[in-house]
Each structure stands twice: as structure tokens, then as C-alpha cells.
């Protein structure tokens, strides 16, 4: 592909005996916003550091505009990083921080001054040139860190959980602003986060990582609506994952659990009857069965209220936990009660079992 700007090919990396990356490959197009999503220790930061050159890989290739930069030192690579801790040099002013990269490139002073003023305008902090990093708020430091990176007009901008240290409200605001900035500049962003909401909001494509491999790589709607496996379903969609046996009623694939068969949507490679079947159902689609309907028997464990929804935790006869969420505070169920739950076929996705390694 001609507009591929960054390519990773089968990157592997071990620290001592721990394999942190086990074959990471992906390609980012020009102007694309790609998020690497995963919980801590999944290898996303290491991937980012290998792209920037701050870490070397054991095997594999990093391609920047088609050129192999795997063995290139970080200062030679046309990528810049916004660090999680911002890493603003405490002994330099804001202007010196932002101008540092340009100064190293041998740009003249007036030119640097102009570029700094422009980029400060862009991050909406005009006139902050002479401040010291210690005099800035968290949000301001964040913007300066971004300004310091983008002023160099990198091919790719790497962002390592840049909003991690900000409070919720500021995060939301910065999400919108980052997205705006990215569109305006047309730079490829490689963004790291463990917050699925952030990833879904901002990205063109998301790579969900776990144990040093991509679990799934796709657009937000692919990831959210068609999770490939149980981990992605749970991590991105906060879905329930139910395990049972595959059964067929005519052509329809069913999940057999607790002596009940529930029809589900088959995926590309549906299992044969009697094999283990894993199904993902989002909590809002878990219904309670009426007297006449069939449903999987379960016991109510607890009720809690969170983010405008009532969460009802159920436990099936097989000991699996299922969350059902409902609007409103009051719901006529109390812990210890026996219920039966069901879901509609179109809401039950057949997914791959979670990789245990």
C-alpha cells in the first residue's frame, strides 16, 4: 500500500525470560489515528518504545515510509513522542522546551521563535513562552508536551497514555481537542491507553493487545460489535461471556447451559455439536425470562448502582457470573432469589474462547 507510513513486521521482544511481544505486526496509513488498547503489562508501551527507537526489538522490522529503521537510533527517526509523565525539561522554559527539537535541527532563532508561537496558538496556550514547567497545571503541561512533539512535524506522533494523569472532565475535553488537532495536522497518531471509552471515541482503528499479541485489530465498530474473542468482548464491550456446549436446533446454533438451549449468532467457524461454545452477551441485553419463556437458571448475588444503571449480578449453576443492567434504581429482585435469564439470538455472539496464555 502506497500510503502506508508506518509498518511493524513480526516484532518480538523479551526482557530476560519474559516474552513481552510475541509477533506484533500492523500498518498505519497517513493521517490515521491508531490506538493500542490493553491493560498494563500487555506490551503496548514496549511497542511504542520500539517504534520510537528507545527500545530495541529482538527480531522483526520497523518501517517508516517504507524505509527500514529498525536499527536506527531514536534521534534519527522522524517520529516524536508525548510521554506519559510529559517529561518537560524542568530547567528550560516552555519556549526552550518546544524549540529544543528545532534547535537540534539547526533552525535559526527567529524561525524557532515563530514556530513556537504558532504551535502555542495551536494548543491554545498563546503567550506561555517564558513560563517554567513547574508553573503550569497538569492540563497545560499536557498541551506543552504535545506542542513540543508536533512542532517538529513528525511523520508519526506517539502518545503514551497522555491523558492518564488528568481528571475525568479534563480528559473528555482533551480527547476532543486531540482529535481536532490530529485532523488539522494530518499526522498519524499512535495512541496508547487502557481506557476503552477513550479508544472507541478517538480512533480510526484499534489494536486490542494482551500478552504481547493483538487479540483483534479493527475499527471501533468492528471491535465493539463483532469482538473476535472472549477477551475483546469483555475488555472493550464489558460483555458477559458464557460458556456451554454447542447444540443445533435445525440449522440454528444454540448454547446449551443449565439444561436450556438458547439460540445464538454463529461466526465464520461454528463449532460442531457437543463442543465447547463461548458466547458474548452485553449486560443490557440480558433479559429475565417470564413464566412461559425458557431461560438459564441463576441466583441473584448482589445489586449495585453505577453510572445511571442498576447492575444485577447473577450466578449460573455452572458458577459463571452474569451481569444484567437496567435503567432506574429500583428493580424487584433481591439477593438469593432464583431467576431465569435469556437473551435474543441477535444479541448473542459466538466468539473464540479466551487465550489463557
Amino acid at each position: 500500500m502506497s500510503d502506508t507510513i508506518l509498518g511493524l513486521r513480526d516484532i518480538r521482544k523479551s526482557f530476560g525470560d519474559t516474552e513481552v511481544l510475541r509477533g506484533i505486526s500492523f500498518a498505519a496509513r497517513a493521517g490515521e489515528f491508531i490506538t493500542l488498547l490493553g491493560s498494563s503489562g500487555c506490551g503496548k508501551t514496549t511497542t511504542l518504545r520500539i517504534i520510537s527507537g528507545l527500545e530495541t526489538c529482538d527480531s522483526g522490522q520497523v518501517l517508516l515510509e517504507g524505509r527500514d529503521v529498525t536499527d536506527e537510533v531514536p534521534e534519527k527517526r522522524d517520529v516524536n513522542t508525548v510521554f506519559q509523565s510529559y517529561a518537560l525539561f524542568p530547567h528550560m522554559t516552555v519556549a526552550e522546551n518546544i524549540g529544543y527539537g528545532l534547535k537540534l535541527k539547526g533552525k535559526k532563532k527567529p524561525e524557532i521563535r515563530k514556530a513556537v508561537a504558532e504551535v502555542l496558538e495551536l494548543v491554545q496556550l498563546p503567550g506561555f513562552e517564558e513560563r517554567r514547567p513547574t508553573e503550569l497545571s497538569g492540563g497545560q503541561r499536557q498541551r506543552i508536551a504535545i506542542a513540543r512533539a508536533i512542532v517538529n512535524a513528525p511523520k508519526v506522533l506517539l502518545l503514551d497514555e497522555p491523558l492518564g494523569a488528568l481528571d475525568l472532565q479534563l480528559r473528555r475535553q482533551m480527547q476532543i481537542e486531540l482529535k481536532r488537532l490530529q485532523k488539522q495536522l494530518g499526522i498519524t497518531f499512535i495512541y496508547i491507553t487502557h481506557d476503552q471509552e477513550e479508544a472507541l471515541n478517538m480512533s480510526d482503528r484499534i489494536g486490542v493487545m494482551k500478552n504481547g499479541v493483538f487479540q483483534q485489530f479493527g475499527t471501533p465498530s468492528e471491535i465493539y460489535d463483532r469482538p473476535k474473542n472472549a477477551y475483546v468482548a469483555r475488555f472493550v464491550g464489558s460483555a458477559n461471556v458464557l460458556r456451554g456446549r454447542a447444540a443445533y436446533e435445525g440449522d440454528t446454533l444454540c448454547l446449551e447451559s443449565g439444561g436450556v438451549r438458547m439460540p445464538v449468532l454463529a461466526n465464520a467457524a461454528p463449532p460442531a455439536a457437543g463442543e465447547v461454545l463461548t458466547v458474548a452477551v452485553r449486560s443490557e441485553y440480558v433479559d429475565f425470562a417470564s413464566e412461559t419463556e425458557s431461560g438459564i437458571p441463576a441466583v441473584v448475588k448482589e445489586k449495585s448502582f453505577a453510572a445511571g444503571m442498576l447492575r444485577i449480578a447473577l450466578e449460573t449453576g455452572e458458577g459463571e457470573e452474569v451481569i444484567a443492567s437496567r435503567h432506574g434504581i429500583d428493580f424487584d429482585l433481591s439477593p438469593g432469589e432464583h431467576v431465569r435469564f435469556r437473551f435474543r439470538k441477535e444479541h448473542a455472539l459466538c466468539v473464540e474462547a479466551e487465550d489463557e496464555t
Partner: protein
Amino acid sequence: MRKQKKQSRFPDLYLIVLTALMYLPIVIVMVYSVNESKISSVWSGFSLKWYAQLFKDRAIGTAILNSFLLGAISSLAAAAIGTLGAIGTVRTGFRGRGFMEYIATLPMMTPEIILGMIFLAFFSLLGLPFGMTTLIISHTAFCIPYVFMQVKARLAGMDKSYEEAARDLGANRTRVFFDITLPLIAPAILSGMMLSFAMSFDDVIVSVFVTGVKVNTLPILIYTQLKTGVTPKINALCTLMFAATLILVILSSLIGRSGYKKKNGNTGGLQT
């Protein structure tokens, strides 16, 4: 009620009395430096004549100059060697690291008399002429740990991403060192150097062994005079030295607000 009052008073009283006792000998020396009489136990009126005599004394002048030179060169050399060594040790996880750290701080844990002894023996084995060179080498040796420890602590507490950010922005290792690392550890180097200078300027034990016959440092000169005949000039000299120390301490506490803490942390020498 009365008991409680007594309890709350005692710590203050204790601190005041002990601090006063610490300053007693210093104050006495200062008072007698302006005493007219040559006999130090007799007070016969105010006079600055000992100061006048002090300034006429060529030997003392040379000794002061020697001590300054020695302190400056040793602390500079220790700063260079100690700083580089600390960076090398902290930034690399090479195998002999623990051993290297132990060796680098060895002079701190060795009684000074032994340092003096081994330097004397070793330098005469090498056939080095005793004098400024041997003084500088031995003082540098016992000053290195002060810089090394300070810089190491500073580096260990420093966020690695500053250096990484600089590389990411296009600085090579050399630029990173001069633009980022050095400015960030400068306060630690400076305070290590000041401590080194003070240690060198005040050293008697090691110097006695390696000074030879030609070169006199200030502490050695004072030491010999204290052992033989003391003239009240020494009072005046000590007073001036105290004033210089005072200025140095105040300056160093102005350099960084954390100055106290760092210095406090670094009192761990075996020098006295």
C-alpha cells in the same frame, strides 16, 4: 500540670545547652583573637594586632594558597571522576556494579589514618616525590565518594524520560548529556564539590603523611603550631577561616532550598 510543663521544656533546654557547648570553643577562639595579651588566659584589652601580624606572615599566606589550590583541584578532579562514574554506574546494569559502588565509597568507610598510611607507602613505592602531586591524588581519592554518592542519589531519583524525550526530539547521546543530564544533576555535583572542598581544606590526617617537607597546607601548619608554640596569630587565622566557612555554608544553603537536606544526608564521611 507542673510535670507536663517540665516535660515540654526539657527538649528545648537540651538542644540549647548542647548547641551552646558546641559553639563554646569557637567563640573562645574568636574572643581571644582580639585579645591584646599574648597569654591566652589573660584578657588585657581589645586589639587587632594579631590580625596585622597574621597578614605579614608569609608562611601562613603560602599555606592558605596551597590549601585553596589543593581543595580546588581535588574537588574538581573528584567532581569529574565521581560524576562520570556515578552516571556510568546508574545508567548501566553491568555485572560488577555492586562491587564498583563498594569500591567507590571505600574511602568513606576507611579510617583516615589508614588512607594516610597506604598512600604514604604506595607513593614511596612508586617513587613519587611527596608534595602537591601526592596531596592532590590522595585528596581526590577521599573526595570522590562525596560527589559519587550525591550524584548517584540524584540520578536514581531522576525521571529517565527526560533523557529519552531529548533523544526522541533528535539529540544524540552527547547532546543529551550536555543539554539534559548535566544541568539536571548540576546541583548535586556542586554540593558534592563543596563538601569535597571543605573536607580537603580541613584535612590533617591524610595530609600529614603525604605532604612531604616542602609543602605546607593550612591545617598542617596549624597542627604543628598547636603542638609546639602557639602564637595568638592562630586565633586570628581560625576566626577568619570560620568567617569563610560561614559564608560558604550560607551560600550553599542559598543555592538550593533542598541544600540542607542533601548536605545533611552527606555527613556520612569518616573525616573529622
